[in-house]
């Protein structure tokens, strides 16, 4: 009855199960807490009005707009770059070639670079090097692009999210049966014709997944945009590429840590966090759904 190995087994298995319970409970507590407190202030007005009275009233429209503008610019930069890199690795380079190995290593390591280092890079490279260079060349040295701006923030964020797009696109490319490519070639298609008319249309789902995951990541990250273009409060929405902008995540950070009146901003803060969370979760959820469909095809579609 009291078999020692059986008891040890049950205890270990119980502990492992407990770990699952703890993780799920932590996620539930965080989301529950934010949902309960965040729903108070959430309204259409909150989403469509500008902040008032030193962030103790009004809404968060400029931050939402700024976040959308940022990720839109980021997407324009990151999708072509990421998709082309994936196509190179999967369709162009010889299998198992050294170059593919190096590119993959670079992508993996790029994914592991801390967000704050991207922020430093954005400041040192895009603003101080490229921006100042453009100013010297075209604007007689006056500050136009050599300062924090939405374009530099978006490009910094594009670098940060590129691995996401590459990995998702590659997975989609892998799901396309090799016979499709062979048929295209046998009909006399050139490599680019094969890619543009056979591979890319088939990979749209994966590219979409990667893009959505990148947008989700990009709309939540704060560290890379802190020094490259995000501002705490601006009376006007960004109109030009060299304008600064308000961002949801940065807004949360500043309101949390530098608010003069914590109690007054708390309800607004909670609602802002809820909006940010809903935005990222909605995006993630969509991406996961599309990815699940691709994986299904990868498994059964051949």
């Amino acid at each position: 009855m009291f078999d020692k190995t059986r008891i040890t087994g049950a205890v270990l298995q119980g502990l492992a199960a407990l770990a699952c319970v703890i993780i799920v409970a932590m996620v539930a507590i965080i989301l529950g807490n934010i949902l309960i407190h965040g729903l108070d202030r959430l309204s259409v007005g909150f989403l469509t009005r500008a902040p008032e009275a030193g962030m103790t009233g009004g809404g968060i429209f400029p931050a939402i707009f700024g976040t959308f503008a940022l990720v839109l610019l980021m997407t324009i930069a990151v999708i072509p770059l990421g998709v082309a890199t994936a196509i190179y690795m999967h369709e162009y380079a010889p299998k198992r070639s050294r170059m593919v190995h190096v590119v993959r290593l670079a992508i993996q390591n790029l994914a592991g670079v801390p967000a704050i280092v991207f922020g430093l890079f954005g400041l040192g490279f895009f603003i101080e090097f490229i921006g100042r260079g453009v100013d010297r060349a075209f604007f007689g040295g006056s500050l136009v692009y050599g300062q924090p701006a939405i374009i530099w923030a978006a490009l910094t964020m594009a670098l940060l999210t590129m691995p996401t797009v590459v990995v998702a696109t590659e997975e989609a490319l892998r799901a396309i049966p090799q016979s499709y490519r062979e048929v295209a070639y046998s009909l006399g298609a050139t490599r680019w014709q094969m890619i543009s008319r056979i591979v890319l249309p088939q990979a749209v789902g994966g590219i979409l997944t990667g893009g959505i995951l990148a947008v989700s990541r990009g709309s939540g990250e704060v560290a890379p945009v802190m020094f490259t273009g995000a501002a705490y409060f601006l009376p006007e929405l960004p109109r030009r590429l060299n304008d600064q902008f308000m961002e949801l995540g940065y807004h949360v950070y500043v309101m949390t840590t530098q608010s003069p009146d914590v109690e007054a901003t708390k309800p607004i803060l909670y609602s802002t966090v809820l909006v940010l969370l809903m935005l990222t979760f909605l995006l993630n959820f969509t991406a996961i759904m599309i990815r699940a469909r691709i994986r299904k095809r990868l498994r059964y579609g051949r």
Partner: protein
Amino acid sequence: MTVVRLPRAGFAGSLSDRLASIVIRGSAFLAILSLVLIFIFIGKEALPILTSQEVQKEASLSTLFFPQPAKPGARPQYMWQPVSEVPKYSVLPLFVSTLKVTVIAVFFAIPLAVAAALYTAEFAHPWVREVVKPAIELLAGIPSVVIGFFCLMVLAGWLQQVFGWTYRLNAVTAGLGLSLAVIPIVYTVAEDAFSSVPQTFREGSLAMGASSWQTAWRVVLPAAMPGVLAACVLGFGRAIGETMIVLMASGNAAILSLSPVDSIRTFSATIAAELGEVVVGSAHYHVLFFLGAALFVLTFLLNLFGHWWVGRLQKKLQGAS
């Protein structure tokens, strides 16, 4: 499988084909280039600490790593006070802080994540998997600024009430928050490692009369060990570089102490908090880039090591099955 010989690039010779080839190759090259550029541009701004006489008057390697007197004649100390009359740039308090919070985060995250991964891979009913996996994906999708917000506004208060700490924001609070960011990556890599162990290993073990936990503990876990270790290394790398959580929940006081309930100030939080107000080109600016370079090199090595290990495990298990 039939092998089809692909046309060589430029074979067809049409303009669009050549153009596409150039653009696609260029993009792939850009991926490598961007990593190199990050290294160059962070390094370039960190270098004046070693080379510029002007900067070295305020901050050189010896002021960074050895104790400095606060005033002429005072006892030398390790201090980080970049904006005082005599700026002091000792990285030791920051280094100890970073190490402290990372170790605490990893200490909580690794047992939880690895145990959960083992459970979902080996024992769990499908419905448990259907709950745990989405929960991990949700956790991975929470922006770190939101975790930082939760730690600062909610968790710190709860913990202080329970344990009665002097400082509400300390290394344990930040470490717990940080572990939330580490759990998803450790779980994912560890779970991959467990499920890549060939089914024949389990069947052999069960056929010899081992129980399911004996199989998991003595067969699957050892076989997947390199992957689990890689998961730990990648989790460590993630924890060292994470910024927003420690910036918001750690108290940001550069105190040199080993106590886990003192406030801390990490490398990443220091950069985030101070870079906004620093004069471009000043000694302080270069010191912050030096911290960034240290972070970059450290995480780069950890990642390289982690991925190399994962690759080795896959090769080994593919050979075995």
